[in-house]
């Protein structure tokens, strides 16, 4: 037993670090360093750079462009990429639709979509949640009726992240409303977002950003060839997708980056007669976050290395621990970064700053973004299965209650 990285793992980490340092476009690096989320073009450009290096489809088999990394290497890459900070790989493409097509897709689907997904030529989005189907996903109502060689889709999806950027959507629809069990009447479709009848309505979230959408389907025609796996077996596909590789779900690199931001803000400002960074209570808060990050890092190593040895391919229910603890930490670290900004956490002044921009006010910009990030990540314990649902999973799958 040895918790330290091996020499090879350390060398790999250094290689990743150096590649990111040398290849991340400077304007993207600067924006992200100030705490901004990446723009669409930042994500696309960076994923293409990584793909050229063979580092985009990180969990895919080699024949579909994967780098052939071990689970530990994937974890190292994800963490380094988050902590850099650099734009994250588009998870819809890399950890969701890619593995689904590799597992369930036809040859034609694989050849058509996988290389484009890896290179972010197609931006995918996920059409799962509905106004009446959140945590209870199997109650979804969006209907697909088979007419000749097409399905005709009617209904609506909600919380569809980045649908406004997307070229394609993977969609859960009800194909048999009379199935004995709700889960048995669902199919999994691939839908071109340019198809007539699709309307994307923005939902502005509490951080002021446009990330979420509602998507309406009004007699949208989807060729049968765009169905993945058998009709009415889409729930199997969805379950595979949701349980698939969760390396990086803890998003430790992101928490690390937020704690670093909190510390750098605390060096700039004062607290009770000294610098905030010198305040014992603030330092304890940082120390506690660092303890929690360390514990989660080791737990993540344990889950990842145990997962690499499992042969049944089923997800480790302990990955729910990573999701809950990881998002708690993410929320605590964004909260700390925001609190460090003090009164500067309050203004929304990006436009004013830009207008006055003879000299950029970096501290003000970072402060504004620390609040935006705090607001945005209140969703972390909601998306990807709420933390309450994760505890249900633990109590059923691990504790057998």
């Amino acid at each position, binding site marked *: *037993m*040895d*918790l*330290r*990285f*091996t020499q090879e*793992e350390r060398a790999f980490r250094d290689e990743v670090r150096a590649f990111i340092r040398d290849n991340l476009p400077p304007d993207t690096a600067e924006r992200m360093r100030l705490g901004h989320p990446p723009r669409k073009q930042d994500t696309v450009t960076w994923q293409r750079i990584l793909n050229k290096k063979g580092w985009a489809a990180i969990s895919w088999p080699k024949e579909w462009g994967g780098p052939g990394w071990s689970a*530990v290497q994937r974890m190292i890459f994800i963490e380094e990429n988050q902590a850099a900070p650099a734009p994250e790989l588009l998870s819809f493409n890399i950890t969701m639709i890619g593995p689904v097509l590799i597992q369930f897709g036809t040859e034609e689907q694989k050849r058509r979509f996988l290389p484009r997904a890896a290179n972010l030529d197609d931006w995918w989005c996920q059409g799962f949640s509905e106004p009446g189907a959140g945590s209870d996903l199997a109650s979804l109502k969006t209907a697909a009726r088979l007419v000749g060689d097409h399905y005709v889709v009617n209904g609506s999806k909600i919380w569809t992240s980045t649908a406004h950027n997307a070229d394609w959507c993977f969609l859960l629809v009800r194909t048999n409303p009379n199935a004995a069990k709700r889960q048995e009447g669902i199919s999994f479709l691939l839908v071109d977002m340019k198809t007539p009848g699709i309307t994307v309505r923005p939902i502005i979230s509490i951080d002021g950003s446009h990330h979420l959408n509602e998507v309406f389907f009004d007699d949208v025609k989807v060729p049968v060839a765009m169905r993945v796996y058998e009709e009415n077996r889409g729930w199997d596909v969805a379950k595979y997708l949701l349980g698939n590789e969760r390396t990086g779900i803890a998003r430790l690199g992101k928490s690390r980056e937020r704690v670093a931001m909190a*510390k750098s803000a605390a060096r700039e400002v004062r607290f009770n007669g000294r610098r905030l*960074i010198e305040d*014992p209570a603030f*330092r*304890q808060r*940082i*120390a*506690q976050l*660092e*303890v*929690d990050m*360390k*514990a*989660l890092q*080791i*737990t993540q*190593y*344990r889950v990842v*290395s*145990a997962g690499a040895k499992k042969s049944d391919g089923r997800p480790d229910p*302990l990955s729910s*621990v990573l999701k*809950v*603890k990881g998002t708690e930490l993410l929320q605590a670290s964004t909260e700390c970064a925001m609190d460090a900004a003090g009164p500067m956490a309050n203004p929304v002044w990006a436009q004013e700053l830009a207008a006055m921009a003879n000299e950029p006010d970096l501290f003000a910009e970072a402060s504004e973004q620390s609040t935006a990030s705090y607001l945005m990540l209140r969703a972390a314990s909601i998306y990807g299965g709420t933390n*309450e649902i*994760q*505890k*249900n999973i*633990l*109590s059923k799958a*691990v*504790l057998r*209650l």
Partner: protein
Amino acid sequence: MDFDLSDDQRLLADSVTRLMADRYGFEARKGYLKDPAGWSAAMWGQYAELGLLGLPFAEEHGGYGGGPVDVMLVMQEFGRALALEPYLATVVLGGTALQLAGSTAQQGEILPAVAEGRMKLAFAHGEREARYDLPFVRTTAKRSAGGWVLDGAKSVVFHGDSADRLVVSARVSGDDADEDGIGLFLVDADAAGLARRGYTLRDETRAAEIALHNVAAVPLGEPGAAFPVITRVVEAGIAAMGAEAVGAMEAMHSMTLEYSRTREQFGKPIGTNQVVQHRLAEMLMSMEQGRSMAMLAAMSVTEPDAAERARNISMAKVGYGQAARFVSQQTIQLHGGIGMTEEYAAGHFFRRCLVIEHSFGDTAYHLARLADEVE
């Protein structure tokens, strides 16, 4: 990175698990407690037979050359069984001091005797006023005609009442809180001028107050330069107790889980209530985070970089301490009234965790140390 146990380690863990399952049930433990020593000499003999008492010692000293991970495996089982014997005091604390600072002759005399179960040690370092501050030593060591003599008092010395030989820290020079000027000394438990008063701790393990008046002592290592050794002994203790806390958490979690399946209220098992299920899930998550930290502590004991080692050990103490506190408090809460009773095991695990928390620096102490290092 690698989380696998070697074949030898698996064998070791299995044999200790079997021994404790056979001989250390909660009822058997009540019998061991009736012994005036507060623990079982018969079990001590079993540990010697299994090779546990020499586990971390070199083969030339009758040991197995085991490392911190081997000790972790044993302590985890001891934690699950709430073992009462002076293993931590003798093998981990005393043994580490001897290994790090003992002369060839001292090691040759003492370590084999420990491994065979013939000699028990205790680490007499803490003093009343020092609380958790390691360099605060007021007990003095002075040269005498025949060697060295010690004067002072040591407090809450684990298993100090049953030790045959004590490893005592004393100040050779400098001020009360200086790191320099501290020595470690070997003292016979029945030496003239040494008085000890034994008592039970909250968890029913034993400890002693020790008074030293002009007591003859032999230096263990160079007098005046022992602080780094003391630090490492304490770090080894923190790592061992972390594993013990993990064993205790495992026991508490599984007994609470079992209870929630069988205890019925409002016509159904209490474990069918989501609020209870989620609490058990939270206990599981805390336990796993605590386990990660206990592993970190075990792996760090042999880390050569002192600053890195100290940082990891402090992080681990905070992490497993907080986990153990949460798990043990929720264990009593979910059991309801029965968890409050002396006859039920829950409260005993609870109290072991409480004693561990207040040994070698509590959460607040180690968090403050980490906070001092924030850059």
